[in-house]
């Protein structure tokens, strides 16, 4: 997911308060909306992103860092993290999310380095690193896709239920 869990829940609550409730006049329906707000507030306190996909993404990143170190030995690529970043204990998903996002930024630096003047010393090695990183990043995106709901483009754009729903 792209969004911070808390931000997403806060956004949902605010959207119901400011965009939906003012349009509702039926008391029963308004009660339903407040019920959803209450349930979301509870989720915000008790739930979070699933840990397994985040761990899988960080594992993929750590493997990519190790491969960069191997393929780019002796080259002046951007500094890499020292060793695997995943600890055997169970950090909170917010920590994992931060670790995953930092890993993406670092991998982004290395990927851009493979196309820049810094990689000119060994273009073949840079090309191999670039291909490996792109594969790894695509695998990481596959993890996101595996937890993605079916798109609702039609409903979002028109406000109408689609025939395929």
């Amino acid at each position, binding site marked *: 997911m792209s969004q911070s869990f808390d931000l997403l829940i806060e956004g949902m609550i605010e959207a119901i308060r*400011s*965009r939906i409730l003012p349009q509702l006049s039926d008391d029963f329906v308004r009660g339903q909306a407040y019920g959803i707000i209450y349930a979301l507030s509870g989720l915000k306190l008790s739930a979070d992103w699933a840990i397994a996909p985040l761990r899988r993404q960080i594992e993929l990143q750590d493997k990519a860092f190790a491969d960069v170190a191997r393929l780019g030995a002796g080259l002046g690529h951007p500094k890499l993290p020292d060793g695997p970043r995943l600890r055997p204990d169970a950090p909170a998903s917010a920590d994992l999310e931060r670790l995953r996002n930092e890993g993406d*930024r670092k991998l982004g630096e290395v990927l*851009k380095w493979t196309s820049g003047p810094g990689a000119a010393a060994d273009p073949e090695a840079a090309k191999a690193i670039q291909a490996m990183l*792109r594969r790894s990043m*695509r695998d990481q995106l596959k993890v996101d896709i595996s937890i*993605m709901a079916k798109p609702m*483009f*039609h409903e979002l754009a028109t406000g109408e239920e689609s025939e395929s729903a």
Partner: protein
Amino acid sequence: MAIDDLTMRDRLTEYLSTEAGDAVQIEAFERRSPGFSWITYSFTARDRSDRRRKLILRVGPTNGLFAPYSVLPQVYALQSLENSRVPVPRLVSYSQEGAKIGFPFFICEHVRGDVAAPWLGSGATEEHRRRIVVQFLDILAELHTIDWEHLPLRELLTKVPFGERAERAPLTAWRALVSRPLNRYYPLLDWAGQWLHDNCPMPPRTTIVHGDYRVGNFLEENGNITTILDWELTHIGDPHEDLGWALVPTFNGGSRKLYGVMERNEVIDRYQKRSGITLSPRNLAYYEAFAFYQMAAIQICGIHAFEVSRFNDMRMAAMSTQMASIVRALDKAIEAVA
């Protein structure tokens, strides 16, 4: 500042009355779509002699997905194409400063027809869709062969930053929006922006580019396209860009065929015959990759609106969940160019 429909109606009444120098009544004022960007209203203007005119008002809100808005690309397009074979609604009035209305806006004539649903492949028969898609391509060929250098659309070139190539200017603008810091960073997207910049091909000729030419951005009635809509991204550039965008499966019910009925080779043949422009496989592949970059950039704007601007529109948050599949498709498309 949010747009309130009743206030908008009052302001429109005042604006049209001032313009006409006499009282104008507004009837059947209705918001037409819950759009992500420009807000569209339909209405009937009635003057003192009881003459009625069905019109469309489009307003660029300050908190929209791509704000701040300029009305000028749409205005130049409607002015430039008025007497061409590209069907567009006739422009009635506009103001970039937002005279009386409070936001950039334009008013044009109402055109009959319905919008096709690009995401569902439409319930229309195959025969119907084929008939539409042939017109869709022929109109695009017309658009790309218009001599634009003496038309109002040429003014858009003055907005291209100094030293930038016209056909690359949209990419530069999207990259600026993508580079804004967000919670989640997509390294492949960042790298792809640089790759697209470095590998942008020379166009076979510079033409008018619609910029959002796809199923869903025209009106049709009884099997005929009555008007081409949504000119906000129009610019001068490479004609391959419109074809690359139109072929994105998302706009064709998930199919690689145009509108789910026309094979890619047939699209290319038809377009080339009608336009006289020889398409380059490499340019087309490049602009198919660019199409995914543009889609990703639009999602990023949604994420930014939700996450940073705290614009609590849940559609923005929902859009962002598609980022992974778009970025993955973008990387594959780049692989196909290289």
